[in-house]
C-alpha cells in the first residue's frame, strides 16, 4: 500500500468526524503519531507525515513541531522529500522563525542543483519567504541564474530578484544589467518576469528609471507585436494575446512616461492603437483597455488621447458586466478633478448607476455624482440624489446626506430651493444627518427673511405629520417658537396658509414635549419654543404659564432648569420678558459659536459700532436668571452667539483677535489701596461710578457704585453689562436695588472679568431704575478704564 494513501485516509477520517470534539481527538492522535515518526530514523514516510501535518495545519491546528522536519526534508537528496519540505517551509516558516535561517544553506546548494525542478523549488521558496539576510547572501547566485540558465529558471530567477529588491533595495543595482538584457528574450515567461523586475527597479531608483527610458521604443515594439500578432494558441485569452504580459508592459510604460515628454511622445501612437484595436467584450480585453486608460491618464499624453481614454471609460459604464462598470467609476473618480468636463459628458450614465443593484457600484456612483455637481446641473442632479436617498442602502445614507448638504450649500440656486432641499432630506433621512445640520439649517432659515412665513408653514405641516425625526422636530420647534405669529396670522404668499388656532400650535409643541420619541434635546427645543410663543400669542399665555410651571419639577435636569428660569421670567422678571423673547436677529455664519468653534474666521468685529455680545449671569439665591443682552445692542443684523434655546452661563468661545494690551498695562501697575473711580453715568440725579482692580494679568474686578441725589428713593435698580466676545464676565449680586434719597446710601455691584486673549476691553452698562414712579433706562459705554494711562 502506497504511503500516500495513508494521507488521504487520514483526511477521510478527519472529515468523517461528526463533531468538533471528535475531530480534535482524531487530530491529536494523528499528531502524536506524526511526532513519533519524526523522532524515528528515516523510514521513507517522512514526506507523507509532513504532508499530513500540513493538512492539519490548514485546519487551524498548531504545527510548529514540524518546523525542524521541514529543515531536514529540504536537506534530503530525494526530490519528493525536498518538495514537501519546501512546501512546509513556505507554510510553517517565515523570516521571524529561527529555523528559517537553517535552510539558507540548503537553498544555496539547491540553486545550483543539476535538476531544474530542484532549482525551481529553491527559487520559489526564496521568493516566498526569504529574509533580508538570506537575500543578501544569495543575491549573486540569482544574478548568475538571470544570465546563464534556461528560460524555465530565468523566469523564476527574475521574480526571485523582484522579491530580493523589495526586501533589500540596494540589491537593485546588482540586478539592473541582467534585467536589461532579459528584454531581448523571446520567451513570454521570461519577458514577463523581466518587465516586472524592471518595473520594480525603476520604481525604487530614479537613476535606473532614467536609464530604462531608453528602452521605451523596444517596449513599444514588443507591445505592438502582441497586439497585432495573429492568433497564438499558447498565450491567447479570449482573443487577446497574453493579456498578463500586455498589462505589465503598459504599466512599465506608464512609469517611464510619467513626467517625461519624450517618453510619452514615443508611446502615444501605440496607446492609441491599443485603445482602438482591443476587443473589450471579455474581461481579458477590458483588463488591457483599463490599464491603457490608466497609462494614458498618467503620462503626458495628447489631449486627443485623453479624450479617447475618457470615452473608453464612458463605454465601460454601459457595459453589462458589473465589474467593468465598477472599474470605470473608480477610474472616473480619479480623474474627475483634472478632466472634469470630459467626465461631465457621462453624467447621465453615472446617475443611472445610482439605481444599480450592487452596493459597491451604487457607492461609486454616489461619489462620482457628488463630484460632478456644478452650478449648471444642480437642480436636475439634486432631484436624482434625493430620489437615490429615498431608496439607498442604510450604510450609504449618512454619506449621501452630507454630500447633498455640501452640494446644496455650494450651488443652491435660491434660498427657497436650499431650504426645501434640506427639509426634504430631513423628512427622508433625518436620522442620518450630522449634528451640525440643525444649527446650520436654523442659520439658513433666519437669513432667508422673506421666507420665514413659508418656512414656518412647511415645518408646521411636517411637525403635525410626524414627530419621530429628531433633527426635523428640533428645527420645526425652533421655527414655530420664533415665527409662530406668522403661522397664526393665517396668510402666506409662497404657500397655502394654515388655519390654526393658538391652541393647535401649543398642542403640537406639547405633543413633542410629552412624546416618548422625543430626545431630551428635542424636548428642550419644544419647551423654549413654547415659552417664546408667550410673547407672540395673545390669548393663551396662561396655558404657557402652566406648562412652564409643570416642567419646573421635571426629572430631566435640563428641562427643569429651563422651566424654572422661564417661570422666573414670568414672575419676577416679567418686565423683561418681551425683550428677552424678542425675534432673533440674523445669525452670522462666521461667528465662532455658530460653528462650534470650528471656524477660524470668526474674528471679533472691531469697533464702531461696537458689537458686543455676552450672556449674563445674575447669581441670586438658588436659581439663576438669564438675560439675553442682544436687545441692548439694538437692531438686527448684528452678529451674536446663536442659541436656539436660551441657556445660562455660556462664556464666549475664545477666538484670536488683535488684542490690546490693556490688561498687561493694568497688570504692570501696582494695585493702589484705593483705586480711582470714574463717573460713567450721571442723569436724573443718579450717579454711577466705576472702579477697577486687577488681580491677575487677565482677570479684573470692576465695582459699580450707584448713588442718588434726588429727593426720592430710587427703586428697582438693575445693572446689566456687556463685554467683547472673548471676555468672560460674572456679575456678583448687587448690594440691593434701592438707592436711598439724598445720597444717604449707595448700591454697589461687583463684576468679575476674565480677559484671556487680552483684547481691548470695553464694557457697556445698562442702567434701569424707577424714579418718581417712572421707569428709566439708559445705556453707557465705557471704553477706557480708570487705571489706564490712556
Amino acid at each position, binding site marked *: 500500500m502506497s504511503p*500516500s494513501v495513508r494521507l488521504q485516509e487520514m483526511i477521510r477520517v478527519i*472529515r468523517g468526524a461528526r463533531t468538533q470534539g471528535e475531530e480534535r481527538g482524531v487530530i491529536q492522535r494523528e499528531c502524536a503519531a506524526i511526532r513519533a515518526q519524526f523522532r524515528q530514523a528515516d523510514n521513507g514516510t517522512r514526506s507523507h507525515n509532513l504532508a499530513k501535518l500540513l493538512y492539519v495545519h490548514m485546519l487551524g491546528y498548531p504545527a510548529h513541531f514540524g518546523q525542524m522536519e521541514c529543515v531536514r526534508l529540504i536537506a534530503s537528496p530525494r526530490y519528493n522529500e525536498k518538495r514537501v519540505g519546501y512546501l512546509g517551509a513556505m507554510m510553517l516558516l517565515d523570516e521571524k522563525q529561527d529555523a528559517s535561517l537553517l535552510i539558507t544553506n540548503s537553498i544555496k546548494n539547491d540553486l545550483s542543483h543539476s535538476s531544474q525542478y530542484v532549482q525551481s523549488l529553491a527559487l520559489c521558496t526564496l521568493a516566498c519567504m526569504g529574509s533580508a539576510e538570506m537575500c543578501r547572501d544569495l543575491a549573486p547566485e540569482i544574478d548568475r541564474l538571470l544570465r546563464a540558465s534556461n528560460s524555465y529558471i530565468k523566469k523564476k530567477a527574475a521574480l526571485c530578484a523582484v522579491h530580493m529588491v523589495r526586501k533589500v533595495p540596494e540589491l537593485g543595482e546588482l540586478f539592473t544589467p541582467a534585467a536589461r538584457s532579459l528584454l531581448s528574450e523571446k520567451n513570454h515567461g521570461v519577458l514577463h518576469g523581466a518587465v516586472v523586475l524592471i518595473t520594480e527597479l525603476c520604481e525604487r531608483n530614479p537613476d535606473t528609471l532614467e536609464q530604462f527610458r531608453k528602452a521605451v521604443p523596444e517596449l513599444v515594439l514588443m507591445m505592438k507585436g502582441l497586439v497585432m500578432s495573429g492568433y497564438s494558441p499558447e498565450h491567447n485569452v479570449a482573443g487577446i494575446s497574453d493579456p498578463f504580459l500586455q498589462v505589465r508592459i503598459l504599466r512599465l510604460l506608464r512609469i517611464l512616461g510619467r513626467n517625461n515628454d519624450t517618453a510619452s511622445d514615443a508611446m502615444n501612437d501605440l496607446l492609441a492603437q491599443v485603445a482602438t484595436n482591443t476587443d473589450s467584450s471579455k474581461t481579458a480585453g477590458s483588463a488591457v483597455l483599463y490599464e491603457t486608460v490608466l497609462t494614458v491618464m498618467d503620462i503626458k499624453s495628447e489631449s486627443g488621447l485623453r479624450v479617447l481614454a475618457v470615452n473608453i471609460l464612458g463605454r465601460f459604464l454601459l457595459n453589462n458586466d458589473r465589474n467593468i462598470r465598477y472599474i470605470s467609476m473608480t477610474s472616473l473618480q480619479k480623474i474627475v478633478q483634472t478632466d472634469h468636463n470630459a467626465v461631465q459628458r457621462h453624467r447621465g450614465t453615472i446617475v443611472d448607476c445610482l439605481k444599480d443593484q450592487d452596493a459597491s457600484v451604487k457607492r461609486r456612483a454616489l461619489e462620482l455624482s457628488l463630484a460632478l455637481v456644478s452650478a449648471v446641473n444642480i437642480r436636475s442632479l439634486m432631484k436624482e440624489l434625493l430620489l437615490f436617498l429615498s431608496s439607498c442602502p442604510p450604510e450609504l445614507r449618512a454619506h449621501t446626506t452630507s454630500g447633498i448638504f455640501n452640494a446644496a450649500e455650494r450651488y443652491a440656486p435660491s434660498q427657497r430651493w436650499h431650504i426645501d432641499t434640506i427639509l426634504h432630506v430631513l423628512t427622508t433621512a433625518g436620522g442620518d444627518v450630522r449634528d451640525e445640520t440643525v444649527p446650520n439649517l436654523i442659520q439658513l432659515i433666519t437669513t432667508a427673511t422673506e421666507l420665514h412665513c413659508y418656512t414656518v408653514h412647511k415645518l408646521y405641516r411636517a411637525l403635525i405629520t410626524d414627530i419621530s425625526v429628531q433633527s426635523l422636530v428640533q428645527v420645526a420647534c425652533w421655527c414655530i417658537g420664533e415665527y409662530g405669529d406668522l403661522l397664526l396670522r393665517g396668510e402666506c404668499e409662497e404657500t397655502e396658509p394654515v388655519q390654526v388656532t393658538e391652541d393647535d400650535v401649543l398642542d403640537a409643541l406639547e405633543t413633542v414635549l410629552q412624546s416618548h420619541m422625543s430626545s431630551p434635546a428635542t424636548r428642550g427645543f419644544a419647551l423654549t419654543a413654547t415659552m417664546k410663543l408667550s410673547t407672540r400669542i395673545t390669548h393663551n399665555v396662561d396655558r404657557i404659564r402652566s406648562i412652564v410651571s409643570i416642567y419646573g419639577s421635571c426629572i430631566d435636569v435640563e428641562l427643569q432648569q429651563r422651566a424654572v428660569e422661564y417661570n422666573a421670567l414670568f414672575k419676577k422678571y416679567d418686565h423683561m420678558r418681551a425683550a428677552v423673547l424678542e425675534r432673533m436677529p440674523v445669525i452670522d455664519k462666521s461667528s465662532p459659536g455658530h460653528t462650534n468653534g470650528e471656524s477660524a474666521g470668526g474674528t471679533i468685529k472691531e469697533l464702531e459700532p461696537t458689537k458686543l455680545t455676552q450672556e449674563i449671569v445674575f447669581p441670586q439665591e438658588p436659581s439663576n436668571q438669564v438675560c439675553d443682552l442682544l436687545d441692548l445692542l439694538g437692531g438686527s443684523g448684528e452678529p451674536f452667539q446663536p442659541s436656539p434655546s436660551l441657556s445660562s452661563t455660556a462664556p464666549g468661545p475664545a477666538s484670536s483677535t488683535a488684542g490690546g494690551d490693556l490688561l498687561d498695562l493694568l497688570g504692570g501697575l501696582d494695585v493702589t489701596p484705593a483705586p480711582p473711580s470714574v463717573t460713567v453715568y450721571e442723569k436724573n440725579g443718579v450717579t454711577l461710578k466705576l472702579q477697577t482692580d486687577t488681580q491677575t494679568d487677565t482677570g479684573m474686578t470692576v465695582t459699580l457704585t450707584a448713588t442718588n441725589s434726588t429727593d426720592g428713593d430710587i427703586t428697582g435698580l438693575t445693572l446689566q453689562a456687556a463685554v467683547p466676545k472673548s471676555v468672560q464676565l460674572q456679575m456678583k449680586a448687587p448690594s440691593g436695588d434701592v438707592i436711598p434719597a439724598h445720597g444717604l446710601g449707595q448700591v454697589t455691584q461687583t463684576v468679575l472679568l476674565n480677559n484671556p486673549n487680552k483684547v481691548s476691553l470695553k464694557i457697556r452698562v445698562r442702567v434701569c431704575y424707577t424714579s418718581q414712579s417712572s421707569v428709566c433706562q439708559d445705556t453707557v459705554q465705557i471704553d477706557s478704564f480708570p487705571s489706564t494711562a490712556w
Partner: protein
Amino acid sequence: MPQVPEISMALLPFINNYTHLQCKMRFLLLFSRQGKLRLQKWFTPIPEREKKKITRDMTTMVLARKPRSCNFLHWKDLKIVYKRYASLYFCCGLDAEENELLALEMLHRYVELLDKYFGNVCELDIIFNFEKAYFILDEFLLGGEVQETSKLVVARSVEASDMLQETMEEYMSKPAF
C-alpha cells in the same frame, strides 16, 4: 460605511510593517461556502494569529456578498478580488494599485490549470490533494507575481515534476504498512 468586519487594531502594525515590501499580491485564499479553508498562500510574512484573523475577515466578508454582486471589495488599504467557482471561493488581496480585472483573469487561469490537471476539478480534489494544488500554484505564481503566462508550459512543468516524484516514490515505496 459598508458592513465589513473591522480589522483589529492589533493587526495594523503587522500589516503596515510590511508595506515596504510593496508586494502586489498579499495573499490568496480558497475557502468553501461554509467558510472552511482549502488553500492559503501568503506572500508577506505575517504572524500565525494574524493570518487566522485575516482569513476569518475574508470569509465573513465574501460569504456575505449577494449572488450577482461585483467581484471587487475594498478592505482597509487593500483591494479584494474574489470569484466563486462551484462550491469554492477564490479570494486574493491586492495592493491598491493593482488591476482588478487582470486579477480576475489570474484567478480564472488558476482554476483552468487545476481543471486541466485533475480533469473537471471539484472541491474534493483540492481537499484530498491539497499539496498538488500548491505545487500547481507554485508553477503559476512566484512571490505573488505571475511567472508563466502559457497554460501549456505550466501544465508540462507540473507533469515533469510529478514524474520525478513518482520515480522516487516507486523506488522508495515499501510493501505494506
